[in-house]
């Protein structure tokens, strides 16, 4: 078998896993299963990114999303209110409209993907994509990263301010 065929097979396997795991997020009853189904979906997309020649970003997506879902699981258990596995109940609103919106979005985006006359590939990837990305972030596109960093700092500050119930010098260890 040719390498291209293997890549095709791997892509379809990952694509099917990604979509099915994504659908399972809203189908399963268990909070842990829902969270880790989403993690599986992200890992599958990370593998597809590897197939698309982006070794670094694929690895970063896997790294970030597994970590994020491990934390997400804690929040799921904390904030779910009741345990849907013990007490199965419908926790959805405007279900039909949501299904309609989902199907509509898929038809629209899918039609776009198939009908738009995509241009020819422009240029070829660098021999070392990761190094080129590093050069870009620290060179020609440095402004983007410089702009992101204050956003990140603001997010950290805002997140702490919103979620913390005590003040600056109260360590929470005194009665």
């Amino acid at each position, binding site marked *: 078998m040719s390498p291209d065929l293997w890549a095709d097979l791997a892509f379809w396997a990952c*694509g099917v896993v990604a979509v099915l795991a994504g659908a399972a997020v809203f189908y399963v009853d268990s909070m842990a299963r829902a969270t880790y189904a989403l993690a599986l979906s992200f890992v599958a997309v990370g593998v597809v990114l590897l197939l698309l020649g982006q070794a670094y970003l694929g690895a970063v997506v896997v790294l970030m999303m597994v970590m994020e879902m491990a934390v997400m699981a804690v929040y799921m258990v904390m904030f779910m209110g009741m345990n849907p596995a013990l007490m199965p109940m419908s926790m959805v609103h405007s279900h039909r409209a949501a299904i309609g919106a989902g199907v509509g979005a898929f038809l629209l985006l899918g039609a776009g993907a198939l009908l738009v006359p995509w241009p020819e590939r422009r240029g070829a990837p660098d021999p070392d994509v990761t190094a080129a990305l590093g050069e870009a972030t620290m060179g020609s596109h440095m402004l983007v990263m410089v702009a992101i960093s204050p956003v990140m700092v603001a997010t950290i500050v805002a997140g702490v301010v919103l979620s913390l119930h005590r003040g600056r010098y109260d360590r929470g260890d005194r009665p």
Partner: protein
Amino acid sequence: MILETVLLVAAALFAVGLYGALSQQVVVMVMMGLELMINGVILALGGLWWFLAPDPSGQVLLLVVVAAMTVEMAMGFAVATLLHRQAGHDMTDMATELRR
């Protein structure tokens, strides 16, 4: 594996995420829907990068999307914690403080 198939899978991920984000009542589940939508965006960007213009700018754009996702998660968790602590509820339908 051609551009169209990658985009179709991405569209499916986005559509499932949109369904979840619109239909779920619990804040954390809404965030899971948003995450799934961003997952589709990441896949679509990765495909467009590889098949249309494989230069570093597209990769930087992907990094920005990933960063935006972390911001979304952090603020979502913070607001969910605040809602839970202040009002003791976790449903989007009950978060009506801004309506008054």
